């Protein structure tokens, strides 16, 4: 059975979109909710639990979207920068290793 994975939605504002375009990664974005651009970074159950512990403002939306929300913006910026650096959304293990 495939392990359940939970997304962090990195919503793409203008600043982030510029960075993605400059890195040639604009195609990595998905479109959701009538036109919002988003990068979805998936976490394992263990990574989800660690995130909720390390960042107490974060919330797992268990009822509606099954996604990890309300990470502080600067933390999301760091995750975003790591994605741009690695040109991949598969970065959570490395990102969380520093915490």
């Amino acid at each position, binding site marked *: 059975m495939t392990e359940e994975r939970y997304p962090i939605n990195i919503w793409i504002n203008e600043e982030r979109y510029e960075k993605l375009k400059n890195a040639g990664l604009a195609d990595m974005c998905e479109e959701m909710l*009538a036109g919002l651009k988003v990068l979805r970074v998936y976490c394992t159950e263990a990574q989800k639990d660690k995130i909720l512990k390390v960042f107490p403002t974060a919330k797992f939306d268990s009822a509606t979207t099954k996604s990890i*929300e*309300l990470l502080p913006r600067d933390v999301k910026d760091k995750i975003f920068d790591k994605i741009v650096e690695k040109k991949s959304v598969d970065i959570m293990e490395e990102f969380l290793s520093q915490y």
Partner: protein
Amino acid sequence: MGEIGHGGKEIKERIMAPSEAKEKIKGLTAVPVRSQIANEIIDIAYGFFTPLEGFMGRADLESVCKNMRLTNGVVWSIPILFDLSDQELSDYGIKEGDTILLTYDGNPMAIMEVEEIYKYDKKEICQYVYGTTEEKHPGCARTYKYKDNFLGGKITLVNRPKINPPFDPYFVPPLELRKRFREKGWVRVVAHQTRNVPHTGHEWLMKGAWLQTYGELPIEKPLVGVLVNAIIGEKRKGDYIDEAIILCQDELRKAGYFGDHNHMTTLTFWDMRYAGPREAVFHAALRANLGLTHHMYGRDHAGVGTYYGPYDAHHMLEELKEDLSITPVYSMNWLYCPHCGEITSEGLCNHRDEWQKFSGTVIRSIVQDGVKPPKLIFRPEVFDLVMECAEKYGFGSPFVTDEYLEKRTPVFNILPLE
């Protein structure tokens, strides 16, 4: 006969004229109260909590816990309690039979006739009311924080609260609100319970509930309204600030997504207990007192975490409906379907694989990331107002921060008695 509220009891304001109050409070022992108790004093005095006339005594508390009814048989689901420590009782010298003066902001607020002083097992309260004794349940945490003695007895407000801007137009007590409904010609009014800035999922919950409530009524003139009754109480960091909640809810009317003919926003002072089904029953009583005929309930109404099933509240309301003077209206979730290109109900659309659900939490996350959501998801007028509120009231943030908690203007003050 006056206005009839929850449980078939007449709504009577328990408020003393200032001239009489000045005399009555002379020589009474002054006991300061915290914001939760001040909120509940207002609710009792203005009739939001009809038929309660004061804080509960032991028999009512026990009956509410075990039978979900007051001792007079009226359905009531949440204990309304006033607590003091042994030390406070001793310091103030309070005993049964005394009349005391409750103060807030250092000024006289209400007199209380202390009929009873008693202790009660807080764990037992939690088990009955919240279905758990876990401290991480916010309702249990609040219960465990009560001091060790409960004081039961009638309350009379001696000093009306001064509601501060921008909240002042939204504080409309039950008797006044019922008058306004009559002036509008509404024969049915459906409640929308909220502690949120509205996204279009909320807007459609209201629109759906309005349609359900309209039912078989004639349509030649507007007969049905939605009352957004925002709960204003204790804030947690990360919540939307109160000013954004109340003003943005009203913005849906002002910006034309609703109109004066079918939409109104008011507030009730209450610290949420997150008691799920029991809180749903409490909301039914509260909104019946406000003069509402219907109450919208979505999934997991007033729940928290995974303590309650998504439809537990609906089941409890069905069990009690003969004793509630309000009709529950059950609402399915609204979501965005890219195939339909619109907000739709999960009970209508069958593009299930394409559905994109969204929640208040997701919208908060989008706003926090500095992104303006599309108008199908979040109305631009609401977004602009959220940002305006952040600057005007939130010290730069639409969400509650330490700075907001420390420096905000209170929703109400109790001023010196003139």
